[in-house]
């Protein structure tokens, strides 16, 4: 599904290297987690994959189902099947959530040469998916993320994911700012999208999200590199001993 090879990235504005050779291969239907201390480059990796400006790729590649992501515009990456759930979902005053969702869904369908959804069909689908995430009609009507609580914003991200049906989902610290109930709701939303074909990359600081979204593979990232890869037990090790042990071990 996603294959990252020797990815090196620095900030465009300053001469600061963030990623120092990332290698990562995620197969269809797999759930990978990336854990790591603050400043290890986890969020940068997600932004670079999604195509945010301000980063310069100095080396390496990132292929999504055989297509080079790094040469595409952000919207082309989305149409190719990539989705990033933001750590800090953006507020867009003046643009209704529903308009936003419909524009996005239809733009992707158009890019893939599919017919656009009619207003009625769209409404039916969105209502059904919103219900599962406990997103009410008012939240759909309001401007995108404006005045939403932290939990509402994250649920709105998952709703977008459900509507866009991406093949490769990246969740960037989706657990940050969530209480236990909200985390359960969001995780259930994500798990509902696991169908054996769709792949996930879950970026998180803490192990607790991984109790809900069970990963197949766990990577530990530090200093812009993946320093260890293992099974779910690796996350538990972090939970018990913190990052210091692993970092010291690799040293």
């Amino acid at each position, binding site marked *: 599904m996603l294959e990252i090879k020797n990815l090196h990235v620095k900030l465009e504005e300053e001469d600061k290297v963030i990623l120092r050779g990332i290698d990562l291969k995620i197969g269809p239907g797999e759930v990978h987690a990336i854990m790591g201390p603050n400043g290890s480059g986890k969020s940068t990796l997600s932004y670079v994959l999604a195509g945010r400006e301000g980063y310069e790729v100095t080396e390496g590649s990132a292929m999504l189902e055989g297509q080079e992501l790094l040469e595409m515009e*952000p*919207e082309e990456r989305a149409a190719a099947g990539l989705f*990033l759930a933001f750590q800090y979902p953006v507020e867009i*005053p003046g*643009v209704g959530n529903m308009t936003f969702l419909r524009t*996005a869904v239809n*733009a992707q369908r158009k*890019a893939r040469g599919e017919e656009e959804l009619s207003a009625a069909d769209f409404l039916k689908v969105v209502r059904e998916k919103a219900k599962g995430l406990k997103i009410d009609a008012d939240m759909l009507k309001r401007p995108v993320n404006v005045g939403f609580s932290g939990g509402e914003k994250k649920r709105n991200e998952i709703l977008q994911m459900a509507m866009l049906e991406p093949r490769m989902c990246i969740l960037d610290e989706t657990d940050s700012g969530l209480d236990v109930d909200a985390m359960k709701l969001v995780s259930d939303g994500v798990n509902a999208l696991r169908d054996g074909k769709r792949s996930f990359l879950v970026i998180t600081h803490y192990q607790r999200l991984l109790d809900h979204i069970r990963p197949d593979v766990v990577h530990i990232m530090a200093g812009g590199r993946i320093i260890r890869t293992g099974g779910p037990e690796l996350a538990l090790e972090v939970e018990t001993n913190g990052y210091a042990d692993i970092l010291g071990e690799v040293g």
Partner: protein
Amino acid sequence: MALAAAKETALAAREAALRLPECSGWLGAARISARARLAAMGLPARRDEYWRYTDPASLNAPQAPVAAVFRPGDEAPAFDGIDRFRIVFVDGVFDAAASDDLSLAGVEIERLSQAGGSDIHWAQGIYGVLEARGQSPVQRPYAALNTAYATDGVLIRATGRATRPIALVYVHNSETSDAILHHCIKVEAGAELTVLESGPAAARFCKVMEVDIADGGRFHHIRVQGRDHERRAVTHVFARLGAEALFKSFTLTANGRLTRNEAVIELCGPDSVAHVAGAAVGDGDFHHDDTVFITHAAEHCESRQVFKKVLMNGATGVFQGKILVKPGAQKTDGYQISQSLLLDEDSQFLAKPELEIYADDVKCSHGSTSGAIDETALFYLQSRGVPRVVAQSLLVQAFLAEAIDEVADEAIAEDIRGRLEAWLARHAAKAGA
């Protein structure tokens, strides 16, 4: 003295190229007194306080600068889906064949050019009267010139609730046309009227609309200024409101080499409400100026000014907005916001918000901002698969939404939104090609 002499010379040259319409009856008298006002002022110059940001040279020129006629192609006429009464002017000349039968409007309508002969007329208390009141403290020479030289216009009197909007349609057909139109509108006590205006009108267009709203009257004005890129326009709305009266005006402008829209509003009766709003989209050689003066002369009145401009490729936007609260106008609620979205570094927005308050129990707020497009929001939209140009036009529409929300009639507001969306889509397609 040199400035005064230059203004006088400019005026003499401008007037030499104009023909004073026949001067008889009440209208003749109004024209003569307007000419006297104009002579005392001269034409505007860059050194005048309210013309510092807008160069009046092309308005002062004796002949209208040539302006190519824009062919809108498959674009539907403004307000096409609205059941409306149409009055059409082509290059400032009334087009009877294209207009509806004036006797069927449901309100009293007369053409200015046919109303002047008698000694008395209901419009006597309005024509040139509101304009003259609006000349102080800020001079508006083009309004006085208009009162003196207007070749036509309509006089509309609403005594009840008008069944459908009156649509004034301005067609531009000649590259050198120089149109001067003057309308008077009287909304009687408790009556309600909507006036729609659309089209570029002429190569150069000078227009005055005087609106007198009696106690409890309601007046809605929605305007779409034509897309002809080379046209020039200087327009004025003068409004006087009685107690509990309502005045709402909204203007959408896209293109036009020079547009100066002035609104001069006087809240004379208590509990009256005046809202003026504008949304402008300018690309390239575009200069758009909103100059607004709202006077609170009674208690418990509310005024709102909401102006938004999107500027790119060197376009210029100007906003000069003032709220004057007179002594005794307690409990005034005045709000003013002017904002620009600059899509590149070549464009500029010049704003001069002013408050002048002589009462101690009032609420007045104003704000003015200039900003670039929100790159984070743009990336967010793109990451969901929305192409950059579409994302940008979505954010532009969002930026303009507060101004368009000032249009009370939902069907008309939808027409405006649809038009704007189509323009932006076409623009995006052009930019993407």
